């Protein structure tokens, strides 16, 4: 227990350093970008004086250090500033769109894990057979296909040609779907949600699935060659037990690590997938803000994603060290 507290404290300290770096980097982005936010906020026909006034109001004429400190203190207090384009708090907007992206990312993650790990194990234990080669080729295709193109192809085949699933949009969230089910006994909300989820999930999760498949397969193959697996056979342990207790455990370490690292990749990938499916998530918000040069909004998104990444990684390390006691905590 003490070890665990120590681990989390020390990793959080490191994480705070990284998060501070993230905030600084994000601040620098805005600072060096050539656009003048005052002009964005001001009406098109605004006078120079008005622009000046807005600049002063935004604190853009303060020395950089003061701007930095005030931004930093704002972020620490949970205040991500106001959007240049809508003049509403950034935090509220992000909270509003975050569930859409998280739903998508987690669905893709679950899809990838559920398909890839069993497939990886089967492929490794049937090395050199047809199953193995087919799985390998599929995974090669999976890592080589850009997700936006896959998304379009899915729409083309399943929505346009077969007319099975809706092409785009997210008319209802998971939370609301559940609420409808509970309070109105109406499953319609959930099915609508599900039908809109399927294509984006596959589009986003395929690359990840292929990647995890390769890792699992390699990991299991590597473990199978270890001497302790031989020793386990030597002491007469039954095969399923060896697979589960000896082989799978250690081969999952890289899988867990990459899963953690790639959560960021999933969010990044959702930028494009959201664009294809008109999914109202963080990615779309980011692109819209980018087109409008709405820096506070972009900064907010980047900070949220970065912090999420750092926190996930701490947990990934924790899971890994409990899977593998040789990796000492702290």
């Amino acid at each position, binding site marked *: 227990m003490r070890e665990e507290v*120590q681990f989390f*404290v*020390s990793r959080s*300290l*490191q994480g705070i350093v990284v998060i501070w770096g993230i905030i600084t980097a994000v601040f620098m982005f805005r600072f060096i970008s050539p656009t003048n936010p005052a002009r964005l906020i001001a009406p098109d026909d605004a006078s120079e004086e008005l622009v000046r006034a807005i600049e002063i109001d935004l604190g853009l004429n303060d020395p950089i250090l003061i701007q930095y400190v005030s931004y930093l203190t704002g972020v620490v207090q949970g205040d991500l500033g106001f959007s240049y384009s809508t003049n509403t708090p950034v935090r509220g907007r992000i909270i509003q769109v975050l569930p859409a992206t998280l739903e998508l990312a987690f669905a893709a993650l679950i899809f990838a894990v559920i398909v890839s790990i069993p497939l990886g194990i089967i492929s490794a234990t049937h090395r050199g057979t047809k199953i193995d080669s087919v799985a390998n080729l599929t995974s090669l295709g999976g890592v080589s296909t850009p997700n936006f193109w896959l998304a379009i192809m899915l729409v083309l085949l399943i929505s346009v040609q077969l007319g099975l699933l809706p092409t785009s949009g997210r008319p209802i969230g998971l939370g609301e779907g559940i609420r409808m089910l509970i309070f109105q006994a109406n499953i319609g909300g959930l099915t609508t949600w599900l039908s809109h989820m399927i294509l984006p999930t596959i589009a986003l999760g395929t690359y990840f699935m292929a990647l995890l498949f390769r890792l699992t397969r390699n990991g299991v193959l590597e473990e199978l060659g270890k001497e302790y697996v031989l020793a386990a056979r030597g002491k007469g342990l039954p095969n399923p037990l060896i697979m589960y207790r000896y082989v799978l455990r250690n081969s999952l370490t890289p899988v867990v690590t990459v899963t953690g690292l790639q959560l960021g990749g999933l969010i990044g990938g959702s930028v494009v997938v959201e664009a294809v499916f008109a999914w109202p998530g963080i990615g779309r918000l980011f692109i819209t803000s980018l087109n409008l040069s709405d820096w506070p909004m972009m900064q907010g998104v980047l900070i949220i994603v970065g912090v999420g990444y750092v926190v996930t990684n701490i947990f990934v390390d924790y899971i890994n060290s409990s899977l593998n006691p040789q990796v000492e905590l*702290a």
Partner: protein
Amino acid sequence: MEVQVLMSESTNSSRSTDIPSTTIEEIDLDTLVRVDNLCKYYEDDRGLIDWALSRDPEKVRAVDGVSFEIKRGETLGVVGESGCGKSTLARTIMGLHQPTEGTVLFAGKNVAEQVKSDRKRFARRAQIVFQDPSSCLDPRLTLREIVREPLDIHKVGPKPHRNERVEELIERVGLATDQLDRYPSELSGGQRQRIGIARALALDPELLLLDEPTSALDVSVQAQILNLLQEIQEEYNLSYLFISHDLSVIRYLSDRVMVMYLGKIVEIAPSEVIFEEPAHPYTEILLSSTPSKKANIDGKQVRNADIPSPRNPPRGCRFHTRCPVVVPPDNHNVEFEQDEWLAVFDYKLRLRSGRLDTNKLTELVELQDNKTENQTNIKEVVRETCGIPQTLSDSTAEEVLDDSLSALADGDTETALECIAVDFESPCEKQNPPVMHISEGHHSACLRTENE
């Protein structure tokens, strides 16, 4: 603290012994290397949390106050088990590590300073041959490039001359020159070790440090390398510092032998003396544990199979946790038979290391199917696990022990330890054994030696 003790001891005894003192003028021309009170501690990196709690990093006392010298043309064998600091010693002498304390003088000059000011010049005087033949050669270079590397770095002569020299060296170590364009991976372990030796010889050094050069090799190949080393020593008039854990190899090559245990020298003497009349119990055990084709392993053995970590070495004599002849308490209150004493001493060590407490004792009792876990039962179980007889032959000792056991059975480990702290204290625990002169060139650090 400990270091100072040893220093004063070594200077005190310098009248009667030839353990070198720290004065530089005394150096005679015969001495090539002189090591004075050398200490090398490693520190773990301080993490953020250590820094936040201002905790001091743990020190690993790899080499802790070692003094000796190597004469020109002689082979000093260093023997010891893993963790005794023999490799660190070699690397510190080579100037690869800065000593934490003490000095290494090479031909009268401080190595640490020499290395700082002119690494290259020092490199021409001392070279090292490594243990692992698979890691000591760069796999990307051909044998020619490997052996030529020192010549290239030091720009010895023009290029054609260097190539000639490489061929000469390769032939000297017993390889054919047509192998020069091969890569290390194409060679066997013994051949790689020969290349390692050729490379070390390239700069014509005076001292060769041999860090377990044969321990990864097969016996038939080991014999080849040992003979090669012997031949080139004569030919090039080299001094060797020969490190090994294998006593038979040490005896074959060394003029003098130094036995190390947990960073300290326990005994140093001419080869025959160490092997015929070892003074230190550790040396004796090493000798009796080394199996050979003629002698079976028999005789004395260590009490405890675990070598303590140099991170936290035992106080006093570092060998006391494993020594089969730990000196009994000298306070005349109690008297022991040696067997009983060792059992009681074991009990004390276990108690101190926290390996006996009530929880564990209860489990122990349960495991032995004694369902009633009363005091007597616990006491009996403890006696049994530590091998202490039901009653000690000395009645005072029995009383003291019984008090301690009762306290332990009540769950009070501290009192249990206090009870026996004074009466059952071996001098080996409290006192750092001084280096004793036994005969010409024979020194040993054991309290028994003093007593005899």
